[in-house]
């Protein structure tokens, strides 16, 4: 079969070159592309496929036991969430038993989660969080409470940072888009944090956010004339994540400033002139000319910031290690904790798969929504 096929010229696209040349081009192209193709296969595609494979096993980095298929066990542990509604404890007369502060008392969740044969569905679960609704108490149980907290923290981080950073970037771009003296200097200054490593910045900001001598506290005390009480920003669960958000946006916003700027400069000047003739003011020009012209830029910026935000890791690793009280732990921080620190490749891979699905969904949803709004 083969010799016959080879004798028939399959395609002859250009006149100046013959079949031999076509075959040569084919071989040359493969040779020139092959280093990249081999490397991309080995270090990107295969690890990506392996993430899915490992996630269904009990693979460890080093283990004397053979790897076994465990089905959905890793995902079950990661994603199981159950609500345990509890009523206040009542005494024999039906009166609620109060503690020394006069509050209702409730059964402890471990009576349900530790080998209680009447409640097999709660066995082995961990307490994630509690809601008090009326007199009853809802205990949220999860297969991996720390992972649930990291998922919530990561989404919280993304939800604040995506609009915040994109908006700040646009503001900066609009400020320096005007042709006025010195704008290049301002552009340069706003851009400097981008070329500084996030690790360096995280260490610097530990000093800046410090509770005793931190620059932020000192500045706030100075501005308020001493009325402000210094806060140890990274040591409290309520302020640690917002502090990291502010720093992250500050560091990366220069990237989005220049991308917005490129988008702004792609809008034809003639549209603004036409709007001026129609008597539009600056705000109307922004709403009717600038914003529609930035549609593609906006989609791109929102998607890239979201994907970067979901991958939050370095800041956490340097500044808080996930604390205080798991308030800054994130999905990737957990993947590294489990996959590398505890050498549980399978569980780390399962977290990576969840992360990838998250990234994929967000990219698809966001792209879709942004398109709908603008057409």
């Amino acid at each position, binding site marked *: 079969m083969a010799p016959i096929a080879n004798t028939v010229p399959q395609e002859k*696209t250009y006149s100046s070159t013959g079949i031999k040349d076509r075959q040569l*081009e*084919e071989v*040359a*192209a*493969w040779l*020139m*592309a092959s280093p*990249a*193709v081999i*490397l*991309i296969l080995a*270090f*990107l595609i295969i*690890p990506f496929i*392996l*993430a899915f494979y*490992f996630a269904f096993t009990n*693979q460890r*980095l080093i283990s004397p036991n053979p790897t076994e298929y465990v089905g959905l066990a890793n995902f079950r542990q990661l994603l199981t969430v159950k609500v345990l509604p509890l009523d206040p404890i009542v005494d024999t007369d039906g009166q609620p038993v109060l503690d020394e502060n006069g509050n209702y008392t409730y059964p402890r969740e471990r009576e349900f989660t530790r080998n209680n044969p009447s409640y097999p569905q709660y066995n082995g679960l961990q307490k994630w969080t509690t809601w008090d609704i009326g007199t009853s108490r809802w205990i949220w149980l999860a297969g991996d409470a720390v992972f649930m907290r990291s998922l919530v923290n990561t989404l919280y981080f993304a939800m604040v940072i995506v609009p915040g950073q994109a908006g700040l970037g646009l503001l900066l771009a609009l*400020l320096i888009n005007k042709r*006025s003296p010195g704008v290049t200097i*301002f552009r*340069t*200054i*706003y*851009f*400097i944090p981008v*070329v*500084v490593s*996030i*690790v*360096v*910045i995280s*260490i610097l*900001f530990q*000093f800046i956010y410090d509770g005793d001598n931190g*620059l932020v506290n000192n500045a706030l005390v*100075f501005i308020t004339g001493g009325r402000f009480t210094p806060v140890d920003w990274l040591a409290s669960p309520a302020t640690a994540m917002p502090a990291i958000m502010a720093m992250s946006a500050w560091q990366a916003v*220069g990237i989005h400033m*220049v*991308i917005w700027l490129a988008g702004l400069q792609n809008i034809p000047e003639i549209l603004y002139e036409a709007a001026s003739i129609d008597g539009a003011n600056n705000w109307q020009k922004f709403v009717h000319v600038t914003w529609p012209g930035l549609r593609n830029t906006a989609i791109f*910026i929102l*998607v890239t910031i979201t*994907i*970067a935000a979901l*991958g939050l890791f*370095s800041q956490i*690793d340097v500044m808080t290690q996930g604390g205080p009280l798991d308030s800054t732990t994130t999905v990737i921080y957990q*993947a*590294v904790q489990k*996959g*590398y620190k505890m050498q549980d*490749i399978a569980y*780390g*891979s399962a977290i*990576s798969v969840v*992360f*990838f699905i998250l*990234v994929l969904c967000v990219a698809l949803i966001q792209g879709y929504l942004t398109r709908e709004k603008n057409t």
Partner: protein
Amino acid sequence: MNTKTIAFSIRYGFMILLAIIFAFPVVFMMVSSLKPSIQILRDSSSLLAFLPVGEISVDNYFKAFQRAPISLFVFNSLMITMITMGLGLFVNSMAGFALACMRWKGKQIVLSVIIATLILPFETIAVPLLMVVSKLPWLGPQGLTFGWLNSYHVQIIPFIVDAFSIFLFVQFFKSLPYELIEAARIDGAGWFRIYAKLIVPVSGPVFATAAILRGLFMWNQYLWPNMVVQNTQFRPVMVGLGYFWQLTTSNTAGEGILPWGELMAYLTVITVPVIILFLSLQRAFVESIATTGIKG
């Protein structure tokens, strides 16, 4: 004053305020690296924190270099960054050339796969990649060994290929006039010769863009070297920084005050060269970052 002047002043006042917010940490870092730690803490409650006044010296630099092998870390990072960048420019541009200028079966599939991997964050594959590199064979001075952990190559080889660089090269090469290549073909030039002698010399800007983006990425690497490098010998600057931080917090517990000055000196050593490079190649830097927006 008319309204125009007022608007102008407000705008500039706002821009200057923002400039202060964006510049102060780096200024603080550089200034503090010249001060004794006690003075850094004392100055932090006033604007003195941003002024090189008081007992100014380069002592912190000497002490920091004594405390940890910082020059080794800098050498490691420089070498890893340069080799990865150099090999990457070659491998990625050659693939970009094949994808943009040549006809071959499989081209469409290869190109689509490369574009698809653009949305794949490195974080997704870090854990399984750790497993892969811990098993790969390597032929070194000790003969055939298995496992790439604790080496230079584990920090270099996985990062040579870069989908975004390939994408940039494809875009750029496609914009070149095709007649150029056809004319060279008729003159009997081989494909590699066309790439090396004809295409590369006219592609300076795209090479600069790819080099800047990769260089910055490699110099700032943190997650991966953290996972694969445990011993001092192969440690790059950012992982060395964490190690230095630990050294200072554990070794000085009794002294009562952390050697902030030394830490600032280390931070300055690994940051200021990059900032100087940025300031001198500003246009190229800003344009490189702006090109990351074209894939949208």
